[in-house]
């Protein structure tokens, strides 16, 4: 029967052993002549506390502390189940605090803290042209890049990349054409970054020099088109009508120029690439993003010193470089960007404020509970529970709270991250790599445990420090332990809530101002259809003009469409790289000029987009005809800049830095209002419009009524003309503009949400404290009432205490908010970070909520019936 013994629990065996002992003792006593009943009674007396003896035996078991803890935790859960409301409140608050913190830390770690996914990322630097006159960074030109690469010794390699407008891509043997952003890359691009391809290889130096048409796919495109099959290598990809051979696939983490780059090809496949002619190219700022890898042992400072020497030599040598300098910065800083960094740190600071409020709130709840339980602890102590035992029990209760809240918090964080991925702004770099972060989870769980353990045990330990006899005898609960401590917790919550509210108000104001900007055109009922004509079929400019004229006519004929036009890229951020020369004001070609953009548009664009024409006329079909006299329409800001106080109509200009060789000039035939298309929060750039039809255009369609209902008809008309043209970018202007404010909207939403939670918590915290204090003082208030204190004075007394706490919190909060606001200014649009009215509104809001929260316990205090209070007290 040995096997059965194995199944007995340790407790069963202990029972058996003790019983054996008792039986033997009884038998011995009976042997001496005692009656059995008497013997048993005597044994029981001798043995003393049977359970106590067993407990001592259990205490010496080696795994004791663990099973003991588990038992305590179980008891903890049970005792919390008895106080559901309390437990639910603490767990909810902690869950929100932990969940939000874990989610935000995951964002912080993914976007800001994690290294770039390239080999030895700290050696990588961005080398940027700096415009001295405008004091702003810019892209670089090929001649400058070439000089930097030749002369620099501190860099082991200097290459570049840039992005272009999306290209139409078709896989040989497959139907639907696609649009995909491509990265155009300089020599040794992949080698400098040091990332190995997933499969295949990267373009070789020979292929680069031979101008071979090769491409490297992104993992995303590979997955979509080839289902991750290695057969992709060697297949043909048709890019803008040109067949290219696929040589490799880069992993998902490889995200230059952008995280939505679909493929890369060497710049040498472009017919324009000819280094022997580099000296004839413009040296001004350009579109190259130059990057370099530091030579072994070289530092960024050495590279800075060297590059600035090279830049000053180039300034002396070339007139076009006269106002150009070079800036070298860690590639990480260039890619992640100051704005992103500030935004994410702001979010993290906000979540920490929220967490602090949550912790203070939970601390308050736990300390109230501990005080209420002083009598229970006194009873336990009197029954022989050691202090350590009581603390252990409290700890176990805290752990039960923490465990539940942690599970909830991690689940909440996971949900929040999924939401963020689905609806969050796409503009944040690396955001798609977001996942629950192990460090964040571990950190939050550990931090949560510390907070809960401290809040759960400290107040009780203070409570139990008093002599248990006093607590037992008097049931005296009128002087809670450390009332100041609890007051401070509430004031801290109010301070935190105010900081969050100020932030939310500032961001909301900034967002509303940005959203309320006048676009300068009629953004409603306007739709954009992107059309990219393949280079091969539309090589001839006349064919392009014909296509777009026909397209405009066909679409305009759709019932509901009121006007159609076209522009090169409706939402594109115009970089202002071009310049014009004005007749009679010809300057040296090297003179610095205001930055402006020359935008090609079709006839009908102003009418379709609803851009008001201030003077003159819109382009018409005759302006597009070959040999037609050159014409321009300029924006109001451009007109003001060059012809202040006079009309630009009829003035003669040409595109470029010098007059044409043949001496002809173009004429300004119209002035239009400034427009904001690249984003309502971006100031309009000086623009000169020229009539043209490009292969890549945004068809701009105005409709009367529901513009989206017209999409199928528009598709049908374009398909009928050109079945091979991809039509996967169709958007209303309103949604496009909203997308461009998505980042601001998101920041605002997060802050408003946090501020809301913070306010609710702070109000609940204040309410709970005052209600509790009123409950404790029931007897005292009863006496006061009995002695003739009128209700109003009692209400005032409680309210005053609440308001005093609120004012302390508000005072601290204003200072904290003002300090935090300094880091916030760059994130705000047209809003001062120290905007007095925002602060005043926030303070008023917090005060109002605090008074409302204090009113309930104040009125309860006033309703205390002296007789009941004295009898029960």
């Amino acid at each position, binding site marked *: 029967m040995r096997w059965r*013994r194995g199944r007995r629990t340790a407790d069963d065996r202990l029972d058996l052993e003790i019983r*054996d002992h008792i*039986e*033997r003792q009884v038998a011995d006593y009976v042997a001496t002549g005692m009656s059995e009943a008497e013997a048993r009674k005597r044994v029981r007396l001798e*043995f003393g506390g049977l359970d106590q*003896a067993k407990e001592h035996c259990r205490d010496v078991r080696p795994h004791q502390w663990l099973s003991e803890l588990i038992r305590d935790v179980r008891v903890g859960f049970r005792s919390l189940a008895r106080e559901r409301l309390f437990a639910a409140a603490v767990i909810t608050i902690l869950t929100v605090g932990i969940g939000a913190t874990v989610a935000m830390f995951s964002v912080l770690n993914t976007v800001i803290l994690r290294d770039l996914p390239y080999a030895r990322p700290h050696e990588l630097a961005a080398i940027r042209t700096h415009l001295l006159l405008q004091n702003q960074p810019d892209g670089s030109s090929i001649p400058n890049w070439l000089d930097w690469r030749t002369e620099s010794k501190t860099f082991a390699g200097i290459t570049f990349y840039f992005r272009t407008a999306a290209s139409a891509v078709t896989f040989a043997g497959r139907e639907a054409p696609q649009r995909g952003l491509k990265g155009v890359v300089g020599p040794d691009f992949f080698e400098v970054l040091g990332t190995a391809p997933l499969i295949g290889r990267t373009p070789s130096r020979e292929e680069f020099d031979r101008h071979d048409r090769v491409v490297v796919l992104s993992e995303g495109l590979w997955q979509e088109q080839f289902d991750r099959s290695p057969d992709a290598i060697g297949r043909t990809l048709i890019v803008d009508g040109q067949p290219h051979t696929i040589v490799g696939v880069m992993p998902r983490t490889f995200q230059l120029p952008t995280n939505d780059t679909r493929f890369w090809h060497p710049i040498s496949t472009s017919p324009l690439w000819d280094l022997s002619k580099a000296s004839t190219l413009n040296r001004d700022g350009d579109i190259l993003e130059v990057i370099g890898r530091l030579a072994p042992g070289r530092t960024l400072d050495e590279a800075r010193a060297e590059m600035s020497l090279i830049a000053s030599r180039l300034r002396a040598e070339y007139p076009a470089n006269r106002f150009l300098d070079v800036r070298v910065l860690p590639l990480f800083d260039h890619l992640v960007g100051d704005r992103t960094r500030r935004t994410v740190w702001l979010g993290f600071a906000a979540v920490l404020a929220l967490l602090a409020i949550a912790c203070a709130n939970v601390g308050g709840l736990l300390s109230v509970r501990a005080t209420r339980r002083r009598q229970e602890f006194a009873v336990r102590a009197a029954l022989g529970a050691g202090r350590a035992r009581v603390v252990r029990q409290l700890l176990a209760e805290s752990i039960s709270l923490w465990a539940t809240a942690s599970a909830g918090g991690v689940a909440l964080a996971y949900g929040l991250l999924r939401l963020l991925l689905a609806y969050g702004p796409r503009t944040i770099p690396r955001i798609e790599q977001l996942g629950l972060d192990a460090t964040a989870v571990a950190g939050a769980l550990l931090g949560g445990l510390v907070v809960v353990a401290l809040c759960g045990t400290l107040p009780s330990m203070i409570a139990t420090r008093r002599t248990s006899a006093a607590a037992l005898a008097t049931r005296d609960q009128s002087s809670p332990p450390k009332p100041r401590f609890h007051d401070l917790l509430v004031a801290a919550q109010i301070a935190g809530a105010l900081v969050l509210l100020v932030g939310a108000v500032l961001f909301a104001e900034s967002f509303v101002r940005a959203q309320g900007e006048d676009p300068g055109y009629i953004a409603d009922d306007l739709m954009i259809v992107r059309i990219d004509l393949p280079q091969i079929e539309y090589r001839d400019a006349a064919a392009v003009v014909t296509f777009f004229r026909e397209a405009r006519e066909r679409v305009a004929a759709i019932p509901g469409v009121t006007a159609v036009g076209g522009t090169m890229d409706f939402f594109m951020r115009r970089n202002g790289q071009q310049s014009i020369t004005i007749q009679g004001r010809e300057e040296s070609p090297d003179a610095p000029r205001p930055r402006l953009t020359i935008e090609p548009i079709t006839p009908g664009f102003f009418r379709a987009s609803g851009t008001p024409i201030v003077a003159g006329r819109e382009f018409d079909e005759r302006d597009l005809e070959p040999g037609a006299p050159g014409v321009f329409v300029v924006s109001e800001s451009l007109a003001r800049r060059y012809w202040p106080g006079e009309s630009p109509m009829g003035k003669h200009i040409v595109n470029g830095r010098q007059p044409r060789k043949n001496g002809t000039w173009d004429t300004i035939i119209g002035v239009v209002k400034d427009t904001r298309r690249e984003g309502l929060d971006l100031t309009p750039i000086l623009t000169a419009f020229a009539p043209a039809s490009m292969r890549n255009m945004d068809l701009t369609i105005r409709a009367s009524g529901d513009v989206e209902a017209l999409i199928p008809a528009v598709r049908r008309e374009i398909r009928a003309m050109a079945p091979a043209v991809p039509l996967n970018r169709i958007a209303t202007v309103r949604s496009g503009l909203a997308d461009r404010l998505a980042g601001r909207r998101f920041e605002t939403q997060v802050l408003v949400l946090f501020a809301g939670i913070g306010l609710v918590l702070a109000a609940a915290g204040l309410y709970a404290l005052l209600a509790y204090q009123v409950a404790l003082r029931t007897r005292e208030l009863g006496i006061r009432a009995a002695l003739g204190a009128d209700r109003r004075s009692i209400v005032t007394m409680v309210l005053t205490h609440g308001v005093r706490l609120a004012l302390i919190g508000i005072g601290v909060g204003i200072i904290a908010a003002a300090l935090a606001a300094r880091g916030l200014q760059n994130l705000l649009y047209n809003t001062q970070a120290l905007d007095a009215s925002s602060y005043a509104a926030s303070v008023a809001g917090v005060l109002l909520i605090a008074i409302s929260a204090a009113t309930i316990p104040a009125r309860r205090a006033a309703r205390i019936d002296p007789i009941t209070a004295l009898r029960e007290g």
Partner: protein
Amino acid sequence: MSTKSDLPQGTLDLLILKVLALEPLHGYAIGQRLQQISRNVVQVTQGTLYPALHRLENRDLLVADWKMTDTGREAKFYRLTRKGRAYMDVEAEKWQRLIDAFELIFKSADRSAP
């Protein structure tokens, strides 16, 4: 009765080991034996004895076997392990030295007293 609390810390363990060095015994018998040998000077309550036994068992100084006894019940018999015997020898020697030292001090103190 009062002697139980006078037992110096650690001595109970040693006494139990010494008793068990002769033969394996169950808990009740150990208590009885201690009482007998010490002529009732050492009285151990069950509340002290059993935790001590369990502690020694957990330290691998004792092992226990369940054996059927004449009472018709199974009883838990403790016996000394090799480790227990070694421990007992070392501890006993320590105690002996302490007792010698104790005696020496008390006797010399008596002598030097006028």
